[in-house]
């Protein structure tokens, strides 16, 4: 009778979990599989066996190397800066709370809740060549016309997209860090201080290992996001080099099926890049992620 209340048994457990795992895992696995098949030419409305034509077309395109390099560079720099910034904030915030902590936390949460497209539009209005900052600089007499303002947005090096990734993802990573850098981490940091460890030592040997299980997945999510994100690249990027996510969507929305296959070939390249990055990061950080068994 009371079985409805008690935590369900093994079978009930699987039954409760199945819908969630099926929806999230099933739909994304189906989406990945469909994409993979489409990239080798197997799609509805198209006859013939698998072929690597789409990959040949994509990889052989003269602009591909530049676009790929651009996308990976923007994602890597953006992720590196965002992770470092978030770690510094998180480390600083292990110290007793200052007067403005709640306000700063609120500000990060506010930024987190703003949709990506809106944030990209806001950055554009503020930092573009005719944006608000350029107007202030003009008002101060430092420049005479928008063309003289340094290209921070829609620039060749992706500074605008990187700025988007950094400003939008630092709050995200900080939020994932805060719950794991709780009381026990603070106590360990205090012990290290008493034992005479420098701030650098405390950061490297106490703080970093403690937050690694949270920051590594968060960093990978940020990398994947910035590699495959459409909105910031479309609003803050340039025509040449174009970010691969923008090229992929462009090919996807073209009417012919060959272009569609190319879109999925690009997406497979991006996916492979994420997997390689994940494997790389895992091998570099596994000493922090896999703890020896036993009480910690």
């Amino acid at each position: 009778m009371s079985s409805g209340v008690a935590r369900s048994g093994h079978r009930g457990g699987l039954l409760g979990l199945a819908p969630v795992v099926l929806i999230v895992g099933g739909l994304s696995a189906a989406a990945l599989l469909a994409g993979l098949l489409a990239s080798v030419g197997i799609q509805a409305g198209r006859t013939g066996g698998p072929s690597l034509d789409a990959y040949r077309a994509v990889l052989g395109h003269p602009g591909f190397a530049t676009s790929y390099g651009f996308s990976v560079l923007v994602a890597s720099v953006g992720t590196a800066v965002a992770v470092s910034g978030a770690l510094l904030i998180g480390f600083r915030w292990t110290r007793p709370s200052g007067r403005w902590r709640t306000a700063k936390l609120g500000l990060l949460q506010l930024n987190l809740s703003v949709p990506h497209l809106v944030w990209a539009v806001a950055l554009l209005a503020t930092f573009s060549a005719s944006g608000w900052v350029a107007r202030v600089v003009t008002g101060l007499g430092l420049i005479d016309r928008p063309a003289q303002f340094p290209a921070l947005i829609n620039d060749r090096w992706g500074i605008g997209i990187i700025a988007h990734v950094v400003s939008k993802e630092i709050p995200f990573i900080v939020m994932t860090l805060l719950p794991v850098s709780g009381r026990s981490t603070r106590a360990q940091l205090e012990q290290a201080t008493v034992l005479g460890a420098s701030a650098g030592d405390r950061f490297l040997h106490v703080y970093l290992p403690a937050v690694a299980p949270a920051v590594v997945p968060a960093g990978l999510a940020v990398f994947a996001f910035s590699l495959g994100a459409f909105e910031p690249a479309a609003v803050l990027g340039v025509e040449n080099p174009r970010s691969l996510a923008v090229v992929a969507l462009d090919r996807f929305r073209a009417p012919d099926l060959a272009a569609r296959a190319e879109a999925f070939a690009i997406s497979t390249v991006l996916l492979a890049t994420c997997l390689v990055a994940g494997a790389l990061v895992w091998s570099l950080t596994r000493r922090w992620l896999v703890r020896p068994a036993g009480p910690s």
Partner: protein
Amino acid sequence: MRAATRAPVRAGSFAVQLIAVSVLVLPLLVVTLQAVSRGWFYPDVLPRELTFDPAGEVLGRRRTLAALADGLAVGASVTVVAFIVGWPAARVLAGRSLRARGLVFGVLFLPSLLPAVGLAMGVNIVLLHTPLRSSMGGVVVAHLVPTLPYAVALLTAVFVRTDVDQERQAAVLGASPWQRFRMVTLPAAAGGLAVAAALVFLVSWSQYLLTLLAGGGQVVTITMLLFSALSGGNPTTIAVLALCAALPSVGALAVASVCLREGGGR
């Protein structure tokens, strides 16, 4: 000596914080000001005229209202479905070991570690083969991929903190499942549930690519109107649409943080 080296460090740290705060605040202020101005162009630092007329005009358009309604309907449905599906899963996970929980969360959050553009395009062709293609139902299902993991994680956290013994006592005293839910579970978990609902809504509302590709053009949200206004639209219209796209999620966050503060002790 020590004080002399620390003063510039403090000034530097203050400068960094000042820059960080302005980077986070300034863009939102500029967009807000843009939304209530008319003809605010380079090189004017401040608008010459402040007016709500253009904002009223954009908000009065049938397209804007329909887009707001579509986004709200999708967000609300996603929240409801995520709760219905996520609830039993969270109950199960709350009773399992940390290790088992980690494993399930790993599977659930895995899609978030993949490039979004590929996932959205793949979802589009998967849905093409179902009755859900180009429909609001398809968008709701697609949104479950990024939202359900958060729903399950947050609900699990709620159930880990709630006291199962109280539910047992109520059951022993003869309370029906509905009474137990209504009078024991819900009051204890209300704050956490509100936070979970707000976050699920926020994540759904903020989607762009997934909505665009799962909806097949049949579901048009504010972010889509914003995107099309970007090419050649008037700056005030763009700013008004940007605020329309931001306010519901900022509102959802405000609800979440108030609930978190009130229920924080539990």
